[in-house]
Each structure stands twice: as structure tokens, then as C-alpha cells.
């Protein structure tokens, strides 16, 4: 059963002529990692904010449809429950961190829920360990690297022990090392617990191999949902909606346009690519 369901959801910011999100329906499976890919202005951030109720609670506009958590409409649930079941970390980590130390930052959320000290303590330890920050509990957030800050922002939401973690463009503000650390964190989240992760990005590079499903968002509409192999087939299609295709996908398209590869043999990761190229070269028989 889906942990989170978006049913026919639309939202238009007040004063805008066009709706930012139009008729979105999506079932999120428990434990999956799903990436929502879309270009600038596609509605990724707005979509993230509808998932934990910030939209429409804090933003003025017209909202229709529903977001269901375990079958219940989040509109009817107490805010404390919504916020503790669905954790949202926004794009810019700088804007979120304001305490004296890493552990206090992570403790802020469970403190707000009024949890007892021992519960807060165990959640802080868990969140820091999952995000790879366990060695830095007393460090000042301002002294951290960009990648560490992003992971701290995520840790400070993980301490809510949410069933669903929503990460809005977590890679966009990071340098390569920060991105590598974050992707490694996603791997360990996947292995460790059945936390469902929804993340957004405007690039399929790097993220494609890490997720179970991909949803394409184009100007507020979902135009494709499925496994990466099903969705990442045409780099032109991705580019036309503003999404950066993986370089290797572009390579495979180039190879097939040069008749060196069949169209069905499109790939976007190194291993598959190596295999397909070598078999295409070595004899050209079989065709698969």
C-alpha cells in the first residue's frame, strides 16, 4: 500500500495566471527512493511543500485535490502529526541552520514535539549516524563544509523519524565532494531502514542510478513515471523539459544515430554501457 498518495492535486499561487501544479496524481510506495525531475519553474519546490502541508497552509493560493498519508488526508491531521511523519528539507541549507552546535540543531525538531530527553537523545544519535555526522556533535554549524551543512539540514529533519523524507534539490548547492557524500548517505538510508525518500532535481546525472523510480514534471504536470530504464530513454525529451540527461545517455543516443548501436540499447550507467558497446562491436550478432 502506498505510504503517500497525491490525488488530483492542483495549486495556483495567488496572483499568478497559470497554475504551478496541475492535476498531479502519484502513489509513492513505502521504502522506495523516487526522484522527481523537472526544469526551472516546473513546480518541484511547490510540489515538495504540498507534501508536508506548507502549501496551502502558509502560501496563499487555490488548492484542490488531496495528499493522503496512509490513506488519510493530511489536511485533516493535526500539524504535529503531519510534520513528524513527513520530513521536508529545503534546498538551501544556509537558511535552516541557526543553533550553536550540530547536536542542538538536530535536537530542535524533537524538542518542538515535546519529547522526553532520552527519546531526543537517541534520535539525535541515530540521525547523526545515518547522515555521517556522528563525529561532529559539538561543532558549530557555521564551521561545516557545504556538504556537511546539507547533511545536517537533512539530519535535523530525520530526527523527527518521518516515514517519508522529502529533499528539495539536495544536490544543487553542493560541490562534487558534497554530492558524493550525499549520494552515499542515500545509499545507507536505503539499506538501513524503510524510510521512503522523495527527492527533486533538474539533472538526471548521478541520481539516475540511485533511485527506484523517476517522475518527470513539466510545467506543473507529471508527464512520465516509471523505473529509470523506462523513463531515461531519450535525452532530447529530457532536455526539452529542462532536465539534464546523463552524459552516457547522450552518448548512447549519439552512437545510435551513428548506427553504431541500436536504439533499444540506450544506457546511462557505465557498466551497462560498457557491456552493450563491447557486444555491439564484437560481432554485432544477437542484436540484444
Amino acid at each position, binding site marked *: 500500500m502506498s505510504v503517500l498518495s497525491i490525488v488530483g492535486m492542483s495549486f495556483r499561487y495567488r496572483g499568478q495566471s497559470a497554475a504551478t501544479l496541475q492535476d498531479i496524481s502519484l502513489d509513492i510506495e513505502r521504502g522506495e527512493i523516487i526522484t522527481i525531475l523537472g526544469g526551472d519553474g516546473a513546480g518541484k519546490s511547490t510540489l515538495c511543500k504540498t507534501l508536508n502541508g506548507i502549501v496551502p*497552509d502558509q502560501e496563499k493560493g487555490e488548492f484542490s485535490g488531496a495528499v493522503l498519508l496512509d490513506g488519510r488526508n493530511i489536511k485533516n491531521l493535526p500539524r504535529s502529526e503531519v510534520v513528524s511523519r513527513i520530513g521536508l528539507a529545503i534546498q538551501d541549507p544556509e537558511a535552516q541552520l541557526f543553533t550553536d552546535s550540530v547536536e542542538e540543531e538536530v535536537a530542535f525538531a524533537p524538542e518542538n514535539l515535546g519529547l522526553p530527553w532520552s527519546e531526543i537523545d537517541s534520535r539525535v544519535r541515530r540521525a547523526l549516524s545515518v547522515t555521517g555526522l556522528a563525529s561532529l556533535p559539538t561543532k558549530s554549524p557555521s564551521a561545516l563544509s557545504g556538504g556537511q551543512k546539507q547533511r545536517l539540514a537533512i539530519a*535535523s529533519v530525520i530526527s523527527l523519524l518521518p516515514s517519508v523524507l522529502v529533499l528539495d534539490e539536495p544536490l544543487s548547492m553542493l560541490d562534487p565532494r558534497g554530492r558524493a557524500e550525499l549520494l552515499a548517505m542515500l545509499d545507507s538510508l536505503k539499506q538501513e531502514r524503510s524510510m521512503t525518500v522523495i527527492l527533486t532535481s533538474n539533472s538526471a546525472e548521478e541520481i539516475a542510478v540511485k533511485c527506484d523510480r523517476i517522475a518527470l514534471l513539466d510545467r506543473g504536470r507529471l508527464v512520465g513515471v516509471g523505473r529509470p530504464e523506462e523513463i531515461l530513454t531519450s535525452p532530447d525529451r529530457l532536455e526539452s523539459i529542462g532536465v539534464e540527461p546523463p552524459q552516457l545517455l547522450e552518448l548512447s543516443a549519439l552512437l545510435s544515430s551513428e548506427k553504431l548501436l541500436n536504439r533499444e540499447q540506450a544506457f546511462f550507467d557505465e557498466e551497462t554501457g560498457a557491456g552493450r558497446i563491447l557486444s555491439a562491436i564484437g560481432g554485432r550478432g544477437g542484436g540484444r
Partner: protein
Amino acid sequence: MALVDIYVPKKSPLHGVDPRVKIISAVLLTVVCFFITDLVVLLSLLLYMQILVWSTGVNLKTYSSSFWLVARFSIILMIVWPFFDQVGQPILLDLWIYKPTLPAVLRALAIAMRIFIIASGWLILLLTTRHGQLVRGFVKLGLPYDFGISLSIALRYLPNFLGTIDQIKEAQASRGLESSRGNFVKRARNMIPVLIPTFAIAFRAIEGLSEALHSRGYGANPARTYYRDINMTVYDSIAVALIVSVAALAVVSKVLGIADF
């Protein structure tokens, strides 16, 4: 630079004192100062406060910046004072409306010393207390938690703010903006390309922060708990009791004329 970012990350005796004690002491010091008129007493108190400040492990650079900040203010005050206070004898100078008398100058000196003493009290607070603990101290003394959070956020953003202004100046300079030349009007106009981005960035940060606070459950439970809290020890309680009684004694005996200092 930032006055608010002067916490000294060391372990001195004053670091271990509960923030509430330090806050109450700074407040009482401010009040009691005005009841002391004897210059010798003021000087001794001033020197005593400097010893306390140095005991925090403050580095020379921070200390001298704060010192000169207060000094500039005091010097101006001392120079201006005799315009308004011309009581007493003997008159030291006679320049039209500027007639400093010896008693007036001594009163000005007393005020200057009081400013230093008061500043020292608050400086000790800022040198030995992390922002989070400072705010926690105010909240436990009665400041509503929401105000406390606003204070925390302001303390955290102020240094950033100032740093950003420098970066903006650089960015605009590379588009040819001359910010340090021209007459007053021109320079004021040239501040616009620096101020507008500053405010725009601040507003965006505030927006992001409010979403983050919401997502982290701010306000979800009116009865919030605390992880790294501040706790009064026996020594803290004794210290407060002592300070309050000494202050009360000083004020009462001065007012009743029992003692003269």
C-alpha cells in the same frame, strides 16, 4: 567584526556560570553604577571589571576593539558634557558658551567610567556565553520563547549579513560601481546597488527559514522540551544571592545616606 560574534571558546570560571546569573549581574551593575559618585570607588570598580574581562581569556584584538568603541563614545561625551553642565568652581576655561568647571569635568569623568563599567558587565556576558545559552537565559528569566527564537535568528544572521555586504560591494564594483568616490549625494546613491541586494537576500533567507521552522515542527507542541538546557548549580544560586544583596545594600545605604560613595 560583528559585536555579536565575540564568544571566546575557552573554559574560564565565568564561562561556567549560568547565563541568568550573568544577565542579572549585568543589569544590577548598570543600575548600581549610577548610585556611585566617588571617583576612587568608580575607578576601583572599573579596574576590577577589567580583571574579570581578562579572566575570560579574551584575545587582545577583541578586547581592544571593544575598548576603543567605548572609549570613542566616552571621549565625545566628556568633551560635550561641559556644554550642559556649568555648575561649580573653579572655571577651567572660558570660551563663550563652553565653560568647563572642575566639578563638571569630574562629573563627566565619572559618567565615562560608569559607561566603561557597564560595558564591561555586558561584554563579559557576551564573551562567556554562547548565543543559544544566552537566549535560553533570557527565556528562563521571562522572555517569551517566540521572542527568544527571533533573537537567536538575529544573532546568527547578523554576522552573515555584514559579510554579505562586503561580497555585494565586490560584485557591484566589478560592474564599474565606484562606491568610495564622489560627493555625499553620489555616494549615498551608490549605496542603493549594495543595499537592495542585501535586503533581497535577507528576505529570501527569512522565507526559507520560516519554511524550515515549520517543517521542523516549530509551534507544534506548546509544551516543548529542551535537550541541552542551562541549569543553576548551588554556586550559581549563592552567587546570585550575594550579588543581589550587595547591590541592594549599596543602593539602600546610599539612598538613606548611611554611606557615602
